[in-house]
């Protein structure tokens, strides 16, 4: 591959991809020159595939073939669009109309009415994009998208991730060419440092410094590795980037290999992400075929190749030394630092390890310059951050915003607020290593520093929204359960500490808590933070400490009044049928998933509290208000 060939592919494909970003009239003109009257994008992310988007895609292809218009319409299977709760998602360009929760039946109508007759099926659209007067706004102008700034997610939901030429069409591999032909390794590291980019895996270490350390480390053999072991429950940005734009990560790793002097790379990716692994494999094969990976890349004399290693389900492997130990084929246990991986990493050699999202920013920083990137964000946190927005929020999905965007903007404007008229209670960031941010801090601008000041952290970027129905003691018990289970067991403060903390929380949620338990929790937490070997144990107490800080009254209610104010902790509540109100309709007994309700027709029913799992199905179904939660 030469730059001329690369540019030739780019020129041939650029307009086709551009149609998907320029909407309305100009896009209309553009679509005429591409040879395709319209383009239909179907989301092939894991979220949409889970809601059967591939059946929609098949139905679309079959319908286009049946109507004889398959040549006029380009069908593209993309990565994640971001609005996962509305899947399967189908977008038609050049109009940019956004069909939500598409079905194979709906697709037939879209082909007939929209693609053939030119009449948009407004009733099938995401209703936020339809005005009262029936006029339509494109997806890019909705609240969900207009506040976002997409850098790491730039190509997700835009290009076909299984087609390297679509990536090339959006300036793909141009940064690599620039680096290989006109920059020294020192200059590359300097640009990354000047950009202000910090590690998106969570800790926020300056990426450029990491690159420089690895470059300057003595040794002939060096490695470049990518952490794609996203183990944070509720975070899926790394997966979405790998699924939606795998070449962005590959290009960045090749750039890094040139900068630090490495010839072999590893991507350590979760085996639970089959779609991401599949697309990454395709992308690596294509990059090799196009001469962008392997020997003599772009004729520069630089050699580099990448191997995939599958994780096998161990949260601790997100910690850098544990991840490298796992690639070596051992139990993924961390080891003390220093020496840092930059000096002594994989197989004892200097190793550069970055997270997927960090890599996804690199090529654009090289192309657009350090100043461009550092102009975005806050003083100490530059650029953008991708958040996986989940929990009690209307627009569950993936959002990318400049650092410094407030929590309120993310939750209320982009996220569309809390569903069912419930009140916002807290946002949990940073997963098991993070903490909860209460409603009174909703106007906090989000960056690395402000989150740690609130006792939470950026983490990988999971952002779980909780409403009044969530019990904060239960939530911290949930995280402790997780960390106790995932502690690798190598060091005592973490192995024993997480268990003891969990036991204390279980005691409190079971109504057996005593006032001195809170002091025990604080003491234990302090020890764990200072003496655990790795970040897992050091941060494991964070969810408890932050909920204690902001929701101390909930802990006290559990301990002193033996009550769970949110009605979550099972030992502290039970369901009862009020015999006078019960008509004996049997509906509750039929709906109960564990057959805990018994009774004869037209007579009052009873709940067996031992069997009852307190799921609330009976209350939701009772038409007579005869069931109460106490």
């Amino acid at each position, binding site marked *: 591959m030469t730059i001329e060939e690369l540019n030739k592919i780019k020129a041939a494909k650029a307009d086709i991809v551009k149609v998907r970003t320029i909407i309305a009239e100009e896009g209309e003109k553009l679509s005429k020159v591409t040879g395709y009257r319209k383009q239909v994008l179907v989301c092939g992310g894991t*979220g949409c595939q*889970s809601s059967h988007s591939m059946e929609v895609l098949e139905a679309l292809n079959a319908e286009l073939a049946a109507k004889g218009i398959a040549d006029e319409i380009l069908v593209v299977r993309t990565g994640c669009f971001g609005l996962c709760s*509305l899947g399967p998602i189908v977008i038609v360009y050049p109009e940019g109309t956004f069909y939500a929760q598409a079905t194979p039946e709906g697709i037939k109508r879209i082909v007939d009415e929209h693609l053939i007759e030119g009449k948009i099926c407004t009733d099938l659209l995401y209703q936020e994009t339809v005005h009262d007067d029936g006029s339509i706004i494109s997806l890019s102008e909705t609240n969900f998208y207009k506040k976002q700034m997409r850098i790491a997610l730039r190509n997700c939901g835009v290009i076909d991730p299984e087609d390297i030429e679509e990536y090339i069409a959006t300036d793909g591999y141009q940064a690599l060419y620039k680096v290989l032909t006109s920059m020294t390794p020192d200059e590359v590291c300097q640009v990354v440092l000047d950009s202000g980019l910090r590690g998106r895996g969570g800790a926020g270490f300056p990426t450029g410094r990491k690159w420089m350390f690895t470059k300057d480390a003595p040794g002939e053999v060096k490695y470049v590795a990518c952490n794609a072991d996203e183990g944070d429950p*509720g975070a899926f940005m790394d997966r979405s980037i790998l699924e939606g734009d795998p070449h962005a990560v590959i290009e960045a790793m090749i750039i890094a290999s040139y900068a630090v002097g490495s010839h072999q790379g590893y991507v350590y990716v979760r085996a639970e992400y089959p779609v991401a692994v599949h697309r990454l494999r395709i992308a690596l094969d294509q990059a090799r075929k196009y001469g962008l990976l392997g020997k003599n890349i772009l004729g520069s004399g630089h050699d580099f190749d990448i191997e995939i*290693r*599958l994780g096998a389900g161990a949260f601790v492997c997100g910690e850098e030394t544990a991840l490298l130990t796992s690639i070596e084929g051992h139990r*993924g246990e961390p080891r003390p630092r220093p020496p840092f991986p930059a000096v002594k990493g994989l197989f004892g050699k200097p190793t550069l390890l970055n997270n997927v999202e960090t890599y996804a920013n690199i090529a654009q920083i090289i192309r657009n310059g350090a100043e461009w990137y550092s102009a975005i964000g806050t003083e100490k946190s530059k650029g953008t951050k991708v958040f996986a927005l989940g929990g009690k929020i209307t627009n569950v999905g993936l959002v990318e915003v400049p650092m410094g965007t407030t929590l309120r903007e993310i939750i209320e404007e982009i996220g569309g607020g809390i569903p069912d008229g419930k009140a916002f209670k807290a946002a949990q960031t940073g997963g098991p290593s993070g903490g909860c941010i209460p409603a009174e801090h909703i106007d906090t601008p989000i960056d690395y520093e402000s989150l740690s000041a609130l006792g939470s952290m950026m983490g990988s970027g999971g952002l779980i929204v909780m409403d009044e129905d969530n019990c904060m003691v239960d939530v911290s018990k949930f995280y402790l359960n997780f960390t106790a289970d995932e502690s690798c067991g190598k060091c005592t403060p973490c192995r024993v500490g997480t268990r003891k903390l969990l036991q204390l929380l279980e005691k409190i949620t079971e109504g057996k808590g005593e006032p001195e338990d809170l002091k025990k929790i604080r003491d234990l937490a302090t020890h764990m933070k200072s003496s655990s070997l790795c970040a897992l144990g050091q941060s494991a107490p964070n969810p408890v400490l932050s909920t204690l800080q902001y929701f101390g009254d909930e802990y006290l209610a559990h301990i002193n009044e033996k009550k769970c104010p949110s009605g979550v902790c099972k030992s502290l509540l039970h369901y009862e049928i009020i015999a006078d109100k019960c008509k004996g309709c049997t509906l509750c007994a039929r709906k109960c998933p564990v057959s805990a309700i018994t009774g004869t027709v037209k007579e009052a029913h009873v709940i067996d509290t031992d069997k009852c799992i307190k799921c609330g199905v009976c209350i939701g179904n009772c038409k007579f208000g005869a069931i109460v939660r106490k």
Partner: protein
Amino acid sequence: MTEKNVIPFQGTPEQEAQLKEVIARYHDQPGGLMPALQEAQGIYGYLPVEVQRMIADGMNVSLSEVFGVATFYSQFSLTPKGKHRISVCLGTACYVKGSDKILEAVEAKLGIKSGECTPDGMFSIDSCRCVGACGLAPVMLVDDDVYGKLKPEQVAGIIDSYTE
């Protein structure tokens, strides 16, 4: 482990040949033990001690090291799985929307706990960390089928549809 849960190893010569091929492929690869175990689990469905011993002998590592790795990672299983594998997502997004109640409904329906297999070998239950389909929370998987936005009362019907 109680005695009734020990299922005798029933490997076939074909499986053994496949395993030997895997061992030969990863024998000299740095860090080859994990991918070898992953492929071995693909062949047998789980990693009984007999398979671990073959890998240890073939790759020239101690059985204790193989066992150490096999028990460290949650994806490796030392017991066979059911014909239909149910996993309930206990990621945070699912949990705050009540996936613990989905798991309890599954356990109540099948009469076994998470991590176990029904005596007839039809179903096994696992709780998984995060499927990543947070938009559909709470989520349950049966084999490769994803059931999202679940309510506890739907569980029994879904499981029944796999026994017909």
